[in-house]
């Protein structure tokens, strides 16, 4: 398994050079991407330049960091200087930012080898990656199935071994859900622990950047690297809970694992069974399973859609064809130009959410929807606080189902929104959540489970996830794609 620590070991013991490694990743991308469609932009030259620099350092006998020289990818909504950043939308085609996202600045300074930018639902709005202007990224376990969304490209690339790890963003489950679908690990950090500067905003009060990795250990390594206070982000707090890597493998005897029955409502049997089996694994390790109700969760989904769409309608107003990105050819005056550009540049799902967001903020509806949703957000935050008086970690499914066939998601928007039901509460309450594989269903598709912790207690959920993998195995299967290490 091509984890970060494995690659680090290979590089430091000179089993291969960083350049060789990078080349083999680029070659495998060339082959696999035709079917996976994980990458929308491969940056081979830049990757090889960095690899060369790393090789030089190794040759000079200098010590290299854990992330140094490790081939990785960024979701295409993270701003990368001089490298096209499209959010997989027609409206941002050709846009080459003039600044780097803070997370990329950090990783770049550690000589991370970025192989390219990965596919996503347009502006991160979707649960299957199919709203991408470039077509969806496919599931490496079964390319007739979706990779999940919105960070489908990162998950597809990491699950398909054409990147060791990647950074995605999670507004309502966009890291955890595709990680679950692709049989890998996805961590959505506490709101405020990772700087949002340079993350193209979907819903600013919900968005958070996090790692998608092959192992819990890798998630911890990447999280520790990127969770830094950033003066450019007013909502940044940094890694308040402290670094997590050294706290993996702490004993979890006596840890209280909570299960809220609302999280299991409407969940497919195979998924439910896998999650309840995981609870048994925890029990066998001496953890205590606590059951309780979280009735407030039934409002989480509409609250999420109201807040997310409201913020999105505002965040996406700036795409007007004047400063960057796509601009329509034919128009009659500025207003007409803006409307045409937006109507041609945005896909249907994005337009739908902009319209919904505009509606819930408009005069006469603000109180009934937006204000009420904010009020309920407070209620949900409080409900989680109460729950964490009863337990240390909440165990839940990541998604009520496994990866579905492509084309399944687009027919009914409301039904599609329901796939986010287990992931959105974490975003609403700003909590950290991690999805890890916990088995496979009858079709051989991976099942993910979710561990939710208190704010800035990433180390608690990472540790719990790590211990689970130690006890139950990593439930990791190499797919047929990519670099075999």
């Amino acid at each position, binding site marked *: 398994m091509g984890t970060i620590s494995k690659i680090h070991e290979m590089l430091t013991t000179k089993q291969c050079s960083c350049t060789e490694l990078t080349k083999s990743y680029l070659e495998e991308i060339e082959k696999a991407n035709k079917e996976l469609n994980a990458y929308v932009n491969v940056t081979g030259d830049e990757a090889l330049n960095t690899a060369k620099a790393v090789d030089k350092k190794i040759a000079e006998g200098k010590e290299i960091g854990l992330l140094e020289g490790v081939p990785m990818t960024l979701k295409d909504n993270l*701003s990368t200087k001089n490298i096209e950043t499209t959010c997989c939308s027609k409206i941002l085609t050709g846009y080459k930012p003039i600044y780097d996202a803070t997370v990329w600045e950090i990783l770049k300074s550690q000589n991370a080898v970025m192989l390219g930018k990965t596919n996503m639902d347009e502006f991160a709005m979707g649960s299957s990656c199919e709203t991408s202007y470039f077509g969806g990224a496919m599931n490496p376990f079964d390319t007739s199935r979706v990779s999940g969304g919105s960070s489908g490209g990162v998950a597809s690339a990491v699950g398909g071994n054409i990147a060791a790890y990647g950074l995605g963003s999670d507004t309502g489950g966009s890291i955890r859900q595709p990680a679950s679908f692709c049989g890998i690990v996805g961590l959505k950090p506490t709101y405020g622990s990772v700087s949002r500067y340079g993350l193209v905003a979907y*819903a600013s009060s919900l968005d958070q950047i996090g790692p998608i990795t092959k192992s819990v250990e890798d998630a911890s390594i990447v999280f520790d690297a990127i969770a830094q206070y950033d*003066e450019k982000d007013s909502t940044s707090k940094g890694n308040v809970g402290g670094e997590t890597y050294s706290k993996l493998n702490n004993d979890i005897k006596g840890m209280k694992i909570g299960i809220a029955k609302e999280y299991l409502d409407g969940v497919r049997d195979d998924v439910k069974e896998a999650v309840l089996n995981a609870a048994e694994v925890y029990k066998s390790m001496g953890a205590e399973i606590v059951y309780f109700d979280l009735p407030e969760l039934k409002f989480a989904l509409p609250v999420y859609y109201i807040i997310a769409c409201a913020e999105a309608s*505002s965040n996406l*107003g*700036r795409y007007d064809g*004047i*400063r960057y990105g796509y601009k329509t050819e034919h128009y009659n005056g*500025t207003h007409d130009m803006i409307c045409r550009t937006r109507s041609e540049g945005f896909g249907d799902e994005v337009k739908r959410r902009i319209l919904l967001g505009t509606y819930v*903020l408009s005069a006469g509806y603000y109180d009934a929807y937006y204000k009420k949703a904010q009020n309920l957000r407070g209620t949900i935050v409080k409900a989680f606080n109460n729950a964490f008086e009863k337990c240390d970690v909440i165990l839940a499914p990541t998604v009520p189902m496994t990866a579905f066939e492509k084309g399944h998601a687009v027919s009914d928007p409301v039904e599609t929104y329901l796939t986010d039901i287990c992931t959105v509460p974490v975003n609403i309450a700003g909590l950290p959540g991690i999805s890890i594989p916990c088995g496979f269903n009858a079709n051989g598709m991976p099942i993910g489970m979710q561990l939710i912790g208190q704010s800035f207690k990433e180390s608690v959920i990472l540790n719990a996830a790590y211990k689970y993998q130690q006890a139950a195995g990593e439930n990791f299967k190499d797919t047929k794609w990519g670099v075999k290490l």
Partner: protein
Amino acid sequence: MGCQTVKYELVAGFETHIELATKTKIFCGCTTQFGGEPNTHCCPVCIGLPGTLPKLNRQAVRYAIMAGLATHGEIAEESKMDRKNYCYPDLSKAYQISQLYAPLCIGGYVELSNGRKIRLHHIHIEEDAGKLIHQHGDTYVDYNRGGVPLIEIVSEPDIRSIDEAREYVEKLQQVMRYIGISDCKMQEGSMRCDVNISVRPVGSEKLGTRTEIKNMNSINNIAKAMEYEFERQVDLLENGEKVTQETLRYDDATNTTSPMRSKEDAHDYRYFRDPDLVTINISREEVEEIRESLPELPADKCKRYIDELGLPEKDAQLLTKYRKISEYFDEACKGVKSAKTVANFIIGQMFSRTETEADKEIFDVAVTPAQLNELVKLIDSGKIRNNLAKSTLEKMLDTGKGALDFISESDMGGLDENTMAELCKQAVESNPKAVEDYKNGKEKAIKALVGNVMKNSRGKADAVAAEAKIKELIG
């Protein structure tokens, strides 16, 4: 201009935008300097590149608090930033970060010279938009000014005449310049007014339908636009028509107002809390600290000049109009017997050398307050007469030199009574024509005689005493 016909009364409120004198923009480190090549005072944040985030300038908040305190407002303990959504090319994010639900300052007032208080609804902070240039149907966009911090001072509809409107704007300008938070240059756009205006029958308490004249950038235009709009609304009502609530622009070339928005600019701003910015909490200690730091405000100064220094109201107003002048006056007054003498020198001689309002505001005169103070003290101690002081001041203003560079020892000490009597006698004897004229009732003729005494005494004679003596001699 009263703008009050027999039947109708004008009702107006102001929304005044003032650019704050911070060094940097409200949400990024770009300079706020006026001018500059287009799009050179910009960065990813202020041109709204995807993924960028705002960070609030501490000084902008402080300046806004100063404005609130200087207008007698309350500073909110908790204040928040909201997004005002509207899509227009001069707004790089398609929303303006502003405050609606929890503005920084609440209430307050501006007191006019007629004693009326124009109440303020609130003052909030927000960002300025960029600049659009329309040429042959093409639109050019420059974001240098986009993101410059503004305060918006929203008044209640308390203004009842155009004179009051003028004074309200002047008073705001004066007070904001005093506290140093803005240069309030209307011609450069660092102060702009939107005027809400309605009319109602005299005696009615009910507000009429109002129109809003946007973006007025000179006091004269405000007056002209209000006058036009008052008459237009009165005409409508007189003809049995209704005033439509709408936004107007004023065209000073034609002196008319016309509707500004078309259907495509539907306005529903969909304000909501900006999730990229956090709450502003202002402690009471901080408010007091800022209050302490404020300079003496013009209204207080004016009152003090009248009550304590005994200046006429007119003088007090002239001296307090600009902070520089009032500070000059305060400095020059230190330890003098008659503040009025200092006031006379400034208003008489110095103002004739600082003719324009702009010159007065800068008040760059060659004589330092200490030099003027020295000159006045020479009068106080009886060493020189007023006339000599006056002519000396002219020389001082020409050269920047001190009083003692122009006045010799012999000039000081005035005239003894005998010399005075002798000089007066000489004047009467050598000017029989003037004496004759005076005796025939030409009062003014005596001035020529006094002038003769002054000339022969080289300015040392006291003109009043000389006149009395001459009258005595002539009988």
